[in-house]
């Protein structure tokens, strides 16, 4: 069902944990929909110098969180803002169709953390849940 890369990131997730003095924190999801993801970023000179996450969710949710942290670490805020969920899925050599919404979750959590760092207010909605197509 999952690619080797997904399983690798699931088994050995990178950058798990919290950053106590984070510059930005983003949280998406809720326990009802079965996924919650929290991301912490540390920013210096407009570059994401450190990033950590915590995830309650399925194998895909853990793997997408992990790869997202790997992709954006060392990137500028602007570069990180351009990260799309399809890129996240591609980096993992694809996700099963019913798990594609999990890639939104990771990208959403990151954007929220960036918005929090930039001081931009955003709505506290579980966007990835609404994005799930019927029957998934």
């Amino acid at each position, binding site marked *: 069902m999952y690619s080797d890369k997904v*399983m690798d990131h*699931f*088994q050995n*997730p990178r950058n*798990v944990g*919290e950053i106590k003095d984070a510059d930005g924190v983003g*949280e998406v999801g809720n*326990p*009802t*929909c*079965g*996924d*919650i*993801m*929290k991301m912490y970023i540390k920013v210096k000179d407009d570059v994401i110098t450190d990033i950590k996450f*915590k*995830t*309650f*969710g*399925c*194998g*895909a*949710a*853990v793997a997408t969180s992990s790869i997202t942290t790997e992709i954006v670490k060392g990137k500028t805020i602007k570069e990180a803002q351009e990260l799309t969920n399809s890129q996240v899925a591609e980096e993992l050599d694809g996700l099963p169709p*019913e798990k594609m919404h999990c890639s939104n979750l990771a990208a959403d959590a990151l954007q929220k953390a960036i918005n929090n760092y930039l001081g931009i207010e955003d709505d506290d909605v579980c966007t990835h*849940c609404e994005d*799930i197509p019927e*029957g*998934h």
Partner: protein
Amino acid sequence: MKKVYLDNAATTPVASEVKEAIEPYLTKKFGNASSVHSFGRDVRKEVELVREKVADLIGADDSQEVIFTSGGTEADNLSIKGVVMKNRDKGNHIITSAIEHHAVLHPCEYLEEYHDFDVTYLPVDEDGLVDPDDVAEAITDETILVSIMLANNEVGTIQPIAEIGEMLEDKDIYFHTDAVQAVGSIPVDVDELKVDLLSLSAHKFNGPKGIGACYIRKGTKIIPFMHGGAQERGLRASTENVPGIIGLGKAVELAAENLEEKQKEITRLRDKLISGIKDNIDEVTLNGHPTNRLPNNVNVSIRYIEGESLLLNLDLEGIAASSGSACTSGSLDPSHVLLAMDIPHEIAHGSLRLTLGKYTTEEEIDYVLEKLPEVVDRLRAMSPIYNKAE
């Protein structure tokens, strides 16, 4: 790597005795049971012997009340659609429960949508029990069929079928029970349960897949939904699956041997597993009835972690289990059974079902009790909601 199979409610391995019994029926005893010549007649005799064995196992008076089907799903479909279509001049109302297997729920939904039947889906209590009084209250002049499962496949709760059967006995309403998880695991007797129809499946008790049976009490008005030849007294067209039937017969024989003794031993292992999990992991709840449950069923919710990632991690340790998490159901919602028991979504997402079987050993239970807490710790360390609780 060590492999521990604890998903026996999904399916069981075919017993070697069953495999041996089937083998000749794939080769030299290949005849069509409906043929007139000796190839057919010899096979027919064996098929009828199996029918008697199945009848004996479930306490049916006459082996002609047993119809072979392709499995539990077909037996459920035959019972429900066959009875309500035949009896719709008497009414259009069906009573079932919210925790039935999809092989019962989906035929009911189909009958509602395409054939204008009304269906009442009874609620259950927090242990997953249907209240017989609720059944009685739901009955209307239009009610023609009640279908309540004998034991639930997810949480193992055993329903008060005999009590419901007793209440329905003097009424002109047919009573079906899906006994797929129960037959082979606990004693089942159609007269004690007072059911008119019952479904069973061989692969749940070490028989082959693709074969099951439907008990249909003499006098039950029912129509077939497989049309073709006159096999199974015209109730189920299709050339008899002889190797499957022979396999079912052997599996029945094996299941009937010392059933109560085996039940005791498996219950002991089940209870060891339940108490071991509770002792070694905090914030765990047992789903399903604490005592009125299948001897082989353990279903727990482990808070702050999600079922699919739990299953994947256990699989990496060689342990096969299942979960009612949304991520494993292919839908957005967790198990309909857990939700019907009023278990909140977030706790249902962390459910884990471990089902023991004929070949489960104490050593395997010990292995699970060693590995499961480690896996839970690993996942909780990663969980943002576990922190919140601290």
